[in-house]
């Protein structure tokens, strides 16, 4: 595994993604849901909303780094607010 150049932060990052995927898979099996239409006017399931959240969070982090520059962890706070908004309204 040395060639993959693992570090603790990236390992934790992938661990969190894996846990999220696992949790949402279990949720989908245990509590099946019907897709709903939100503000984007498209049908989304919980999985879709997770995807929109993760993709959007990546852009939020990049935008914070490019525009603000300092205090990168605060970007995670913005991502959290964004995630709540996506799961509530999308």
């Amino acid at each position: 595994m040395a060639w993959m150049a693992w570090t603790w932060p990236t390992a934790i990052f992938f661990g969190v993604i894996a846990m999220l995927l696992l949790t949402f898979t279990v949720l989908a099996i245990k509590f099946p849901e019907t897709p709903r239409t939100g503000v984007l006017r498209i049908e989304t399931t919980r999985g879709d909303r997770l995807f929109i959240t993760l993709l959007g969070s990546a852009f939020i982090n990049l935008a914070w780094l490019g525009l603000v520059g300092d205090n990168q962890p605060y970007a995670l706070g913005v991502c959290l607010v964004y995630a709540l908004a996506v799961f509530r309204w999308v």
Partner: protein
Amino acid sequence: MEKTVNQKAWFLVLPVLILVAFSAVIPLMTVVNYAFQDTFGNNQFFWAGLDWFDELLHSDRMWDALGRQIVFSAIILAIEIPLGIFVALNMPKKGFWASFCLVLMSLPLLIPWNVVGTIWQIFGRVDIGLLGYTLDKLGISYNYTQDFYAAWITVIVMDVWHWTSLVALLAYAGLQSIPDAYYQAAKIDQASRWKVFRYIELPKMMGVLMIAILLRFMDSFMIYTEPFVVTGGGPGNATTFLSIDLVKMALGQFDLGPAAAFSLMYFLVILLISWVFYTVMTNLDKRES
């Protein structure tokens, strides 16, 4: 009768999962790991944090390449989609000529990228190429290795030559699936040619057209071989698109960290645009059904 639920079938997907893991997921994870580190070779890495992302976001190099890439994709989509539809509308529907046209249209698609690049590189040369020589004799200054506009026009015309037939074939397939009754109804209503196109052919082609746009967008957004063979990214950086710049950074300069950060941002842009296209496509399908 009650349906039995057997989740064991999921194991049948396992070979695909393993294949995708080895060909896509593990390399992608490695790229993420590289993006936060620096290396001088010998498999030794040093933590660099967000430095590479910070550096790239504040450098003109990536933004310029991204700008060129977006302009290139927009231009080829704006040419290839209408041209492909136009060709499909004018192709014979039945008989020998229909098959002949289909074979003719498929030919450019069968030629490998680097061969297309080589063909156009020679074709455009002023000393031995038919196009370059003719333009030169007509008194038109054309040199794709030195002139910005000549390089762009060559790369765009080459892509249009190579890929318009894909759009035409997809649009043709969409047109062939329209039942005759629609045209008969339009005839009874004395609908004009434009109205037949606008209200019958275009809506019926929409599904395949979205696939054509998605395919052409993704392909043009990661174009590498053809411009690399013809212009090598030049003159200067005029045709240095994202993937050419990325390869220069990763393999030319061996800057694995910045190149990994670059490719992650490249990947995110492609993922976002592809998701938008996919969502529009599936919603169109749902609305139709």
